[in-house]
C-alpha cells in the first residue's frame, strides 16, 4: 500500500444525496477494512459554510493528501471559501460522483497513486 507518508480525507456528503449511497458505503467500507489511518468528515460543504477551523487542520501538513469527495473544482474552492486553501501541490481529489468505488479505493490504497492537480483530477 502506498499510504504511509500520505493522508486520506473522506467526505461523507451527509446532508445531500449527490453521491450515490452505495458508492459512499463501498468506499467507507473499503477504507475501514484496509486498516490504514484516515480522517472522515460528515460534510465538507457544511464545514465550509461554518468556516470550521477543522478545515485548516485537514488542509495542513507536508504529506501528500488524498481527498475522497466530489468534483475537484468544488472541493478546492470550498476549502478556499472557508479560509483554509489547499496546497497547490500534493493534493489529489477523487470524485465519488463519477468514479467507481473500486477505482477510488485502488488509487487511494493502491501502489500506483498518481499525484494530480485538483483542477484536473476527477
Amino acid at each position, binding site marked *: *500500500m502506498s*499510504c*504511509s*507518508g*500520505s*493522508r*486520506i*480525507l473522506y467526505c*461523507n456528503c*451527509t*446532508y*445531500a444525496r*449527490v453521491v450515490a449511497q452505495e458508492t459512499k*458505503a463501498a468506499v*467507507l*467500507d473499503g*477504507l*475501514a*477494512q*484496509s*486498516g*490504514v*489511518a*484516515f*480522517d*472522515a*468528515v*460528515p*460534510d465538507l*460543504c*457544511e464545514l*465550509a*459554510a*461554518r468556516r*470550521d*477551523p*477543522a478545515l*485548516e*487542520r*485537514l488542509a*495542513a*501538513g507536508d*504529506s501528500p493528501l488524498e481527498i475522497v469527495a*466530489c*468534483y*475537484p*473544482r*468544488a*472541493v478546492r*474552492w*470550498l476549502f*478556499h*471559501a472557508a479560509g483554509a486553501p489547499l496546497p497547490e501541490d500534493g493534493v489529489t481529489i477523487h470524485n465519488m*460522483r463519477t468514479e467507481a468505488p473500486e477505482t477510488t479505493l485502488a488509487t487511494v490504497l493502491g501502489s500506483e497513486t498518481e499525484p494530480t492537480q485538483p*483542477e484536473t483530477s*476527477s
Partner: protein
Amino acid sequence: MTLAAPSLRVVLDQRQGPAFEADRKTSLLRTLLDAGYIVSCNGEEGELAPLDASQLLVLREGTAAEDQEAESTEGQIPVTFRGVRKLDADAVLGLVRELQGSTAEPGDWKPWFPVIDYDRCTNCMQCLSFCLFGVYDVDEDKTIDVAQPEKCKTNCPACSRVCPEVAILFPKYKNGPINGDEVQAQDVQREKMKTDISSLLGGDIYSMLRERHARANTRFSKERDEERALKERRRCLVKLQQELDIPEEVLAQLPSAEQILEKASRHSSPRDGSS
C-alpha cells in the same frame, strides 16, 4: 464532563488495546458521520491530520473500567478516553452526544450556498446585484464574497446562471458545470447569451414585469382587467423560473420593489472603475 460542540474530534483508536473488528468499525463510522461528527481512524499505516485546538474523544475497544482522562503531549488539548467494547453503534452515538452535551439532530440545514471559483471570477458584481437575499457582499479589498451563505435559498442556483464567467458553483447541484464539473467552451458561450436576462433581473425584476404589463395594457387596453394582468405576471414568472431554475418558493419570497431599488442603488459601483 461536557465537551464543546463545534470542535470535537472523535478518534477510533486502533493502536492501544484490541482493534475494532472491520465491520464494527464501518458501522461506528457511518453512525457517527451520519450524526454530523468528525471522525479519525488511526491505523498501522498512514497518518492523520495534525492536532489542533479541537478536543479529542478517543474511543477504544476496551471496557468502561479502562476509561481514563489525560492531557495531550502539548498539555493544552483535553483528551477524553472511553472504552466502548459492549456498546453497539447507537449506544456509542448516545455516549458521544452525552459527552458533548448535545441533543442537536443533524441536517437541520442543507448546506446549500454559492462557492466562487476565483480563477474564473472577474469581479463584475452581477451576482451581488442579482441576489435579493443578501448572500453576497464585497470584502475590504472590494472583492466579491459569499458573506452570508446561510441566507441562500435551498436548491436555488439562479445566481450561478447569471454569472457570465460560469464562476459560481453549488457543489450539491445536480448538473455540471454548476456542481464543479469542468467548464467547457460551450458553457461559457451559453452563459454569455444570458447576460441580457441577468441585467434585466439585476436591474429590477419588477421593471420587467411592469414593462410586460404595460405592453399588454396597450395591446388589450379595451379589455384590460385584473385577471389578465395577473396572468401576464404569472407567465413572466414561470418563464424566469424555467430559465434560471428558480424554485417557486424562492420567487414567492422576493422582496418588495422598494427594497430591490434600494439595494441596486447601494451596490451600483462597488469597485470604482474596475471590473
